[in-house]
C-alpha cells in the first residue's frame, strides 16, 4: 500500500463501524488481522508509522537507508518519524556513572531500559532477528516451581497447537529432534515446515567442547556443554515430510512476485534482510483478505469506553508528512478493539485512556532479556560476519534447579564477530589507524600500521573474532514499569512513556554465572578474552553495574514484555488467558506485554502463538455478538474456544 493510498484509506474508513479495529500492524496485530480477515470479518488496522516497505522499491529504499547509516542500529533502516517517534538505542548516553535518556522514551530508573522498538508498518517485526525457539514447559510456572516471577494462566500443552500454527505461519526452519532433546515436547511425527538452517563454521569450532563439564559457581551445579541449533524464521529448504507429507510452500518477498529465496547469508538480519528470506509481518499482510483494510500514519491517541465498560470508540490522528506532525483527528468504532501496538505503547495507551487498570498492574512487570556480551580472539580464523546472527547456542543453563538461585540464561554463539560488542569490523579499522585522536583531542602518534601491514593486521584481528551473547531471564517485577510523563508529550500531544527499570539480585546472579561460564568456554577454546566492562576516566559504559565486586555491562535485545500481564484473576492481572481485558469484555491487548514470563526464549514465536489463540477467541466473541437470538436459552460459554484452522490438521491427525 502506498502512502497516498494509506491516507485515502484512513479518510475512507473514518467514522465507519467495523467488526474489529486492530491498533498496530506488527507481528501480533498482523496475525490477528489475517486470521479474522480469513473468517470474513471487517477489520481495520491502524498503524501509527509509515508504510512503503510493502512495495519492492520501498523496501529497497529501506535497504539503502541502512547501508547509508553511520551507526547501523536496529532502527537504522527507517527514517525518523516525528509524528510517530520510536525509541532508539542512540537516545541513551552515559553521564559519569549514570546515564541520560534523550529521545522519545523518558527514563528515571537506576539502570537504563536499553531496548528499542519500531513504529512503522510491520513494527519491530521488521528488524527482529528471526530466532524462533519455543518456551520450555517449566517457563510457564517460574513462580510455583522456582519461586521467581509470575506463573502463566495456561501451560505449555495449552499453547502447543498454537505454537504449531505460528510455526506454519512463519515458516520455521529447524530440527524437531534437536529441540526435543532440549525439553520441548512435540506431537509424534511433527516436523518444522522447513529443514534446519545450516549451522555456522563458528558453531563447528564450538562443538569441539561438546561433553565438557562446566561448574556454575553461583548455583554450585555442574553442566555439560552441548551445542544445539536454534529454529529460525527464515527460508531454508522446505521439508517434504511436513504436515503429514503435504510439504510446505515457502513464501517469497512481498511486492516482487517470484522473488525471495532461501537465506543467502547477507548477515544483516537486524536491521534488515535485503532479500526478505527472513519472515516479517509484511508476509502476513500480503495475505490479508479483502475485508481487512490497513491505514498507515494513523496514530491512536485514546480509547473511549462506554458506561457498560465496553470500548466504544478509537480516536486517532492522521498525518501526511512524517517530518511535520500536522494531523487531523478521526475516530472509528468497532465491536471489538485489539490493542497490538507493542509492550510499551500498549501500556501507554491504556494509561492515557485510563482503562483496564482495576488491578493496578498496567505498565508494571516490564521485562527484557538483559544480555551479557563477551568477546574474544580465537587462536585460528573462525570466519566471522557470515550467515544469520546466530545459528546455535549452549542451552543447558536455561532450565533446572539452578533457577532457584540465579536467573537462567541462553548462550548464543555469535556469527558476526565483535559487531554488537565493539562495532567491529569498522571500529577495528578506526582503532588500528588510531583515528579520532587521544582522549585529550590530540592526534595519536604513528603506530606503524599502514598499507600492507594495516591490511594484513586487520585480516588477522577480524578473522578471529568470537562473540558470545548471554540472554538472561528477567522475571516479572512490579517495580520495573511504564508510566506517563505528562510534562513531556510527543508530536501528537500524547504524554510520552516514562520507564523505570532495574535488574534484580536474581538477574545479576545470572550475569555472575554467565561470565564464569564464558571464562571456561574461552579457556577451553584457547581464545583470548577481550571483554571489558570497567568504567574508565570516571565514565561507566551504559548498562554498567557491579555485582559481587565484578563489573558488568548489559545490553537490550528488543524483547520488551510484561506490561499488561495475563493471569487468572482480575485483581492481580490485566488480561485473561485470551489476552482479553478483565475490565473490558471487548478489548483485547495482545503482544509480548501479556507474557507473565519469557524464560530465556526469544519471545516472538510465543507472541505469535498467543495472537493466533486470541484470534480464535475474538472470532467466537464476534459470532456471539452477531447471533440473532438465543436458541433454547443456550449461549456459547464465553471462555470456550477452538483451535485455529492452521492447527486443526494436527488435532485431527493425532487424537
Amino acid at each position: 500500500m502506498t502512502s497516498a493510498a494509506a491516507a485515502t484509506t484512513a479518510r475512507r474508513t473514518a467514522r465507519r463501524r467495523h467488526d474489529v479495529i486492530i491498533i498496530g500492524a506488527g507481528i501480533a496485530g498482523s496475525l490477528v488481522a489475517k486470521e479474522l480477515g480469513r473468517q470474513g470479518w471487517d477489520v481495520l488496522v491502524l498503524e501509527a508509522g509509515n508504510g512503503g516497505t510493502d512495495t519492492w522499491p520501498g523496501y529497497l529504499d529501506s535497504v539503502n537507508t541502512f547501508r547509508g547509516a553511520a551507526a547501523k542500529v536496529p532502527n537504522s533502516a527507517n527514517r525518523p518519524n516525528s509524528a510517530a517517534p520510536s525509541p532508539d538505542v542512540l537516545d541513551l548516553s552515559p553521564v559519569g556513572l549514570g546515564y541520560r535518556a534523550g529521545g522519545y522514551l523518558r527514563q528515571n530508573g537506576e539502570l537504563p531500559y536499553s531496548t528499542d522498538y519500531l513504529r512503522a508498518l510491520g513494527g519491530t517485526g521488521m528488524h527482529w532477528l528471526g530466532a524462533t525457539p519455543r518456551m520450555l514447559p517449566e517457563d510457564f510456572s517460574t513462580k510455583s516451581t522456582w519461586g521467581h516471577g509470575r506463573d502463566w494462566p495456561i501451560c505449555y500443552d495449552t499453547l502447543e497447537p498454537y505454537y504449531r500454527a505460528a510455526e506454519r505461519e512463519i515458516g520455521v526452519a529447524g530440527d524437531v529432534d534437536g529441540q526435543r532433546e532440549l525439553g520441548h515436547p512435540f506431537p509424534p511425527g511433527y516436523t518444522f515446515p522447513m529443514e534446519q538452517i545450516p549451522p555456522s563454521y563458528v558453531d563447528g569450532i564450538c562443538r569441539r567442547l561438546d561433553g565438557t563439564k562446566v561448574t556454575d559457581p553461583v548455583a554450585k551445579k555442574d553442566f555439560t556443554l552441548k551445542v544445539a541449533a536454534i529454529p529460525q524464521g527464515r527460508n531454508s529448504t522446505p521439508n517434504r515430510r511436513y504436515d503429514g507429507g503435504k510439504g510446505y510452500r515457502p513464501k517469497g518477498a512481498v511486492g516482487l512476485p517470484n522473488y525471495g529465496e532461501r537465506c543467502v547469508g547477507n548477515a544483516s538480519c537486524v536491521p534488515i534482510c535485503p532479500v526478505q528470506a527472513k519472515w516479517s509481518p509484511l508476509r502476513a499482510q500480503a495475505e490479508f483478505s479483502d475485508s481487512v483494510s490497513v491505514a498507515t500514519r494513523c496514530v491512536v491517541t485514546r480509547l473511549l469506553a462506554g458506561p457498560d465498560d465496553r470500548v466504544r470508540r478509537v480516536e486517532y490522528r492522521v498525518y501526511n508528512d512524517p517530518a511535520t506532525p500536522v494531523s487531523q483527528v478521526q475516530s472509528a468504532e468497532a465491536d471489538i478493539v485489539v490493542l497490538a501496538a507493542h509492550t510499551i505503547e500498549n501500556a501507554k495507551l491504556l494509561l492515557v485512556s485510563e482503562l483496564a487498570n482495576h488491578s493496578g498492574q498496567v505498565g508494571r512487570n516490564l521485562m527484557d532479556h538483559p544480555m551479557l556480551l563477551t568477546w574474544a580472539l580465537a587462536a585460528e580464523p573462525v570466519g566471522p560476519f557470515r550467515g544469520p546472527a546466530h545459528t546455535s547456542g549452549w542451552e543447558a543453563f536455561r532450565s533446572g534447579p539452578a533457577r532457584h538461585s540465579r536467573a537462567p540464561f541462553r548462550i548464543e554463539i555469535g556469527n558476526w564477530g565483535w559487531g554488537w560488542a565493539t562495532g567491529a569490523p569498522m571500529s577495528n579499522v578506526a582503532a588500528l589507524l588510531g583515528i579520532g585522536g587521544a582522549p585529550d583531542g590530540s592526534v595519536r602518534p604513528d603506530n606503524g600500521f599502514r598499507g600492507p601491514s594495516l591490511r594484513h593486521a586487520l585480516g588477522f584481528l577480524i578473522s578471529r573474532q568470537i562473540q558470545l551473547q548471554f540472554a538472561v531471564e528477567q522475571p516479572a517485577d512490579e517495580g520495573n514499569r511504564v508510566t506517563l510523563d505528562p510534562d513531556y508529550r510527543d508530536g501528537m500531544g500524547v504524554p510520552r512513556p516514562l520507564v523505570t527499570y532495574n535488574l534484580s539480585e536474581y538477574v545479576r546472579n545470572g550475569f555472575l554465572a554467565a561470565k564464569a561460564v564464558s571464562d571456561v568456554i574461552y579457556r577451553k577454546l584457547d581464545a583470548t578474552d577481550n571483554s571489558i566492562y570497567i568504567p574508565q576516566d570516571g565514565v561507566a559504559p551504559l548498562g554498567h553495574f557491579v555485582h559481587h565486586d565484578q563489573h558488568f555491562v548489559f545490553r537490550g535485545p528488543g524483547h520488551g514484555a510484561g506490561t499488561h500481564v495475563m493471569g487468572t484473576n482480575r485483581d492481580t492481572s490485566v488480561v485473561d488467558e485470551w489476552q482479553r481485558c478483565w475490565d473490558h469484555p471487548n478489548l483485547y491487548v495482545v503482544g509480548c506485554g501479556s507474557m507473565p514470563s519469557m524464560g530465556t526464549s526469544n519471545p516472538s514465536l510465543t507472541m505469535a502463538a498467543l495472537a493466533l489463540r486470541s484470534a480464535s477467541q475474538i472470532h467466537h466473541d464476534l459470532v456471539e455478538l452477531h447471533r440473532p437470538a438465543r436458541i433454547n436459552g443456550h449461549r456459547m460459554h464465553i471462555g470456550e474456544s477452538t483451535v485455529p484452522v492452521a492447527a486443526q490438521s494436527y488435532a485431527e491427525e493425532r487424537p
Partner: protein
Amino acid sequence: MSRSRQKSSGAQPRIAVTAGLTEVVPAIGAFLRVAQLSIEQSSEPFPALPGESDPPVVALAMCQADRRIKEVMFVTISAADPPAVSPKVVRFIEYSVDLTGFTRFDLYATGMAELYYDTVLQQLGLSDGEDLIGGPDAGARRLEISEATRLEAGRAITYLWYTGAWPRIAPAAHAELRRQQANTEFVVSPDAYTEGLVWRAFGGHPAGAKPPGFGTWSDPPSGLSDLDEITADIEAQRRGFSAGTAEAKATAAATVQDPTAPALPEAAEKLATLLPGPAWAYFVTPSEHPLAAEPNTLEGTS
C-alpha cells in the same frame, strides 16, 4: 571512458578491441559519443604516464543497417587527447595504494575513486591544485599543515577506503583544518558502504550486500594473503605487470620488504592495545569507539 586507462604497459594501444565486439554495437556507439564529447570539451594536455611513449588510440567502428561491424578504424589522437581519469584522481589512487595496502586495480574496482577524491577535497578544504603530499613534478602544492594533522588526514582517507565513511577525526586536526563541517562520521553513499575494503581484508562480504549464498557460512573461511604477498602484488602492479604473470612473480621475489612493517603474530602484543573496546553508549559510530583498555585476564573462575 575509463576503458582507455585500464592498460598500464606501454607498447599497445590503450583501447583494446575485444572479442565479441561485433555483437555489442550499441555499446560501441555509446563509447564513441563519449570519446568525441571529451575531446571537444577538454583543454587539459594529456599527461604522459611513466613508460608510455605511444599516444592513445581510439577505435571507430563502421556499421551498417544489419548492425554488424564491417570495418574497424583505429584513429590516433595526438597531444590533446583527454585523460580518461583525471590525473588528480590518478595521483589520489597512487597515494591511496600506499595507505590501504590494496592495489590500484582493487581501488578502481570499487567504483568510488572520484567520489572519494571529491569527498577528501571537501572534508580537508583543499583548494584546486593542492594535495596532502605535493611534490615538484606532481603539479600540486603541498597543503600547509602540521605533520600530525597530515598523519590524521591520511588516516581519514584510509578509513574512507576501508569503510566507505568519512570518520570523526582528532579534534586537534579538525581545528587546524578549520573545517566548516561538523566533526562526525558519515557514510559517503550507500554504495560506498558496500565497497568498503575492510570486508575484503578478512575475506568476508559487506553485511547486508554481496551475499555468498545459502549455507556458505558453514564452510571454512577463505585463506588470507600474507604480508609478503600483499606487498608483492602492489609492487608488481605498480611496475605494470598483471598479477600472476612471470614478471609479477619476478618482481615479487625481488621486492624488498619494508623492514619497519610489523609482522604477525609477533606483533600480537602491540595489536592487543589497538583493538576497539566497548562504546560508552550502546551504539556509536565506529570511529568514535574507544580503544580497548588492558584485556581482562582469564584467572579466577572455573
